[in-house]
């Protein structure tokens, strides 16, 4: 079985596209080969900035012959039907066979597909792969019409086995496949021929190209750590940066430099961000001072001066960058110490959304809302309002203008410089959180108040102007905002009603209603609450809480208090996991069904209360006793929101209810006894419903 080696050699492929391209190349080619009837043992794809490579081991030498028979129309069928059959089979009338069938003579097509040799199939598959490659962005070049991520220069495509190596004959848009490639652009630019994958990888390494990106990553990391260690420092690891850098070099040469003393006073995040975003440098920390004091840059070449010129150049560029950063930092600090009034003024002219006013308008709303929320999260209302007023001012700072990803964090530094209390500074840093599903949730009261106010203002605002997310479109990240509210509320055990005229949502929504004039306040709030409930379901499902359990709890009053809702759902799920709990649901449903049928039939509601004196058997009397005991336990537990105790008490009814149904016929001829029993069922139903709507449960 021969091995196949393919290399597509081009001008520099963007680093961020390489991993996907490796996977795509492997999938497209192997799928194509298998679809055409070949088999293979193993495949692996590789990339460097200038090449995409696929190595396939143990490829079959030809596809098997295939014989297919297809039954066509009757010989006497209209000409049109026969023509259609010819078209679909690609045969001529003479090639069809006539065979006797139950209904007479019928045309049969016998299609013979002979086995094809591997090279022919490979050429076809590779041609189609290159022409249909799913690059995120592709381009044409010169006078050609082929598209690739950057100009494609050569194709290597060889089949090799013990007998030798053959080039697969193939030409794509004027590029003829061969058995040669090139090494490093500067260190080993000459072309060379290869015989198989091992030969290819070995010759590339001699030509200063490490083919495997994982190997390049490993080499960079090890050398960078060694350099840092030798200087008594430690490398700040950054996986994403490592992968990106490995996609920018064929022959990585890490070089370490120091950050000039002048810049060590900058916040570490600024140093790190500037070095990473602009220069793709790794940060190096001094464990003694805890500061970022050095960097590692990864060159793509070896020089006679051991990289001295390269390092000097990089250091110079870094100094220019950090001079800018320092200039921004010092100017920003001046504005911050003066109270940030310039920034607050500036945000008046920055539009948040043309229907929702300026950033300044938004900040005023968030400040008012943070004040309302403060008591619910144990924050001081004055501090919460102050924090909300300052939290977004850093959007006007020069540093955030340069590095938008530092928003919030710079706000913290500037609030500290302005002499604001720690809670206010922390609120600037934390109020965007949580951003991702795995992002930490703030727990300090003032930041929690501002974070909630920020997200609730966004949600109510976009609801007010009918910009809700639809399908996959969520341009204002409202799903994320809702999940943020949910996590903030649950993570901090915040007790607050969201909906209703007295709920939190009503505060900003009323404001929007006044501004916009025509707004059905209650409907908007109800709709937004439903959105919260949808997001909560997704969130709780991930936490392992059953969908129907959530529905059973959503049906209860107070479902806009998310903490209460989740507490109830958690208790219900735990109860349902016990034997009694699971079986109680069946008993409840039986009671409820019999009752509903009787109520429908009789046209009355059996809610008059059952009287134990009409009880006839032991089981019936026992049920009365059990209900009395359960009620006595459930009522105070519910009042104390102790759902676990209430549900345990409810679950104790399972035995008495089952025994009652086994021993007792509800619909007896004695109407007094029957009515009493129906009233007894009603007691079961209403008692269970006071805990959760069990009718919403599956099974």
């Amino acid at each position, binding site marked *: 079985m021969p091995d196949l080696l393919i290399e597509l050699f081009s001008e*520099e492929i963007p680093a961020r596209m390489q991993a996907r391209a490796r996977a795509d190349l492997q999938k497209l080619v192997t799928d194509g080969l298998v679809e055409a009837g070949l088999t293979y043992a193993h495949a692996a794809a590789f990339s460097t900035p200038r090449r995409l490579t696929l190595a396939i081991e143990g490829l079959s030498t030809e596809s098997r012959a295939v014989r297919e028979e297809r039954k066509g129309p009757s010989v006497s069928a209209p000409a049109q039907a026969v023509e259609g059959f010819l078209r679909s089979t690609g045969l001529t009338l003479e090639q069809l066979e006539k065979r006797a069938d139950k209904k007479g003579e019928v045309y049969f097509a016998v299609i013979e597909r002979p086995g094809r040799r591997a090279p022919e199939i490979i050429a076809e598959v590779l041609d189609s792969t290159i022409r249909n490659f799913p690059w995120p962005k592709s*381009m044409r*070049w*010169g006078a*050609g019409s082929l598209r690739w991520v*950057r*100009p494609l220069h050569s194709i290597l495509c060889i089949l090799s086995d013990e007998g030798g190596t053959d080039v697969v004959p193939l030409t794509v848009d004027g590029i003829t496949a061969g058995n040669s490639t090139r090494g490093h652009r500067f260190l080993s630019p000459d072309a060379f021929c290869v015989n198989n994958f091992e030969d290819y990888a070995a010759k590339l390494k001699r030509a200063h190209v490490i083919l495997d990106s994982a190997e390049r990553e490993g080499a960079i990391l090890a050398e960078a750590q060694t350099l840092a260690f030798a200087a008594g420092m430690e490398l700040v690891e950054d996986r994403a940066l490592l992968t990106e850098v490995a996609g920018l070099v064929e022959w990585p040469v890490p070089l370490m430099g120091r950050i000039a003393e002048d810049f060590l006073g900058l916040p570490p995040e600024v140093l790190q961000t500037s070095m990473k975003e602009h220069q793709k440098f790794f940060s190096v920390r001094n464990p003694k001072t805890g500061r970022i004091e050095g960097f590692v840059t990864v060159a793509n*070449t070896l020089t*006679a001066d051991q990289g001295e010129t390269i390092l000097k150049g990089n250091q110079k*560029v870094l100094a220019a960058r950090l001079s800018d950063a320092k200039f921004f930092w010092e100017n920003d600090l001046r504005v911050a110490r003066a109270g940030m009034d310039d920034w607050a003024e500036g945000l008046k002219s920055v539009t948040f959304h043309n229907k929702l006013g300026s950033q300044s308008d938004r900040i005023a709303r968030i400040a008012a809302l943070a004040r309302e929320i403060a008591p619910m999260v144990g924050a001081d209302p004055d501090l919460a309002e102050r924090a909300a007023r300052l939290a977004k001012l850093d959007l006007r700072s020069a540093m955030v203008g340069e590095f938008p990803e530092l928003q919030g964090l710079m706000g913290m530094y500037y609030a500290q410089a302005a002499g604001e209390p720690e809670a206010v500074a922390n609120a600037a840093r934390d109020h965007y959180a949580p951003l991702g599903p795995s992002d930490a949730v703030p727990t300090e009261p003032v930041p929690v108040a501002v974070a909630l106010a920020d997200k609730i203002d966004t949600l109510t605002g976009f609801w007010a102007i009918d910009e809700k997310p639809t399908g996959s479109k969520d341009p204002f990240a409202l799903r994320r905002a809702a999940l943020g509210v949910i996590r903030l509320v649950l993570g901090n055990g915040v007790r607050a009603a969201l909906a209703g005229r007295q709920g939190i949502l009503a505060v900003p929504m009323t404001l929007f209603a006044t501004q916009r004039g025509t707004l059905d306040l209650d409907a908007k709030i109800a709709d937004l609450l439903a959105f919260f409930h949808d997001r909560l379901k997704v969130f709780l499902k991930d936490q392992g809480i059953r969908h129907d359990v959530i529905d059973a709890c959503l049906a209860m009053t107070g479902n806009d208090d998310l903490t209460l809702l989740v507490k109830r759902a958690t208790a219900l799920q735990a109860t349902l996991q016990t034997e009694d709990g699971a079986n109680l649901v069946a008993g409840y449903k039986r009671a409820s069904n019999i009752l509903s049928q009787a109520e429908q039939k009789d046209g009355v509601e059996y809610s008059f209360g059952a009287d134990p004196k009409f009880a006839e058997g032991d089981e019936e009397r026992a049920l009365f006793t059990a209900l009395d005991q359960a009620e006595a336990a459930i009522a105070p537990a519910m009042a104390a929101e102790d759902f676990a105790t209430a549900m345990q008490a409810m679950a104790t009814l399972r035995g008495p209810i089952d025994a009652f149904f086994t021993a007792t016929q509800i619909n007896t001829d004695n109407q007094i006894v029957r009515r009493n029993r129906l009233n007894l069922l009603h007691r079961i139903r209403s008692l269970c419903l006071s805990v959760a709507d069990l009718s919403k449960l599956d099974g």
Partner: protein
Amino acid sequence: MSDSQPARAEPAAISAPRSFQEIILRLQAYWASKGCAILQPYDMEVGAGTFHPATTLRSLGTKPWAAAYVQPSRRPTDGRYGENPNRLQHYYQYQVIIKPSPPDLQELYLGSLRAIGLDPALHDIRFVEDDWESPTLGAWGLGWEVWCDGMEVSQFTYFQQVGGHDCRPVSGELTYGLERLAMYVLGIDHVMTMPFNDPDAPIALTYGDIFRQTEEEYSRHNFDGADTDKLLRNFAEAEAECDRLLGFDPQDEKSGKRIIMAHPAYDQCIKASHLFNLLDARGVISVTERQAYIGRVRALAKKCADAFRQTEAGADAAAEAGAAT
């Protein structure tokens, strides 16, 4: 040593340039030696070398083209009164445009770096993804920013679309930010201290000797002096004039020839673009208006590109042949 021994084929070590103008002269000589027509700057205020009709318009149509030129470029918002070591409201770009892009364009480019003293054997030259887009020109392309030791020294782009037209064939465009590149090559920290001519010349001039005062004057002009009402009026006038020029019947009565005024109309587009940049520097354009202004300039650029495609220089060879029969 024997005189008959043939000279080794290794390239002679290239001496380091000593002044800003020497770098420009070397680039001119290099690209001239590679067959480019060395053009002179366009005589209008533009934001970048790309605006020169030798790039925008000539990248359209099928006619082969190879040109290189220095283009003074103006970015009114970048004015820093001559104080910032790297930022200027008036600076120079070196622009190379070749259509169709030759297969060895990267190698040609690296040769130009060698010519100005940046030897890839000593420096770390990298092609880092950077796609280019000009919303005002309705143009985009794919390519890289070229890094030398971590510094961006050029922009390298394969034009895909200009003025809303697909580029067929594709032009390769190289743009060098001359001041920054020269400061790196010459080891200068502040642009104003960079030798402009030979530092040993009887009258040695620095960049600052020539441009510090104008940077001050234009910074004041751009941020405070320019009359915004007049700028707004001029913008509307340029826009109208562009439309008017393109509205003429292609048949010229006087000469009896078919003459489409694509270039004069495009001048008005350039004018509108610069006026917009000035208005932007004066801070009178809001965020929402910005997009609208950019859209208006783009509309002009597209119309000019459409018109140029109707001219001899911008036509497709195949279409021309078809028209001739």
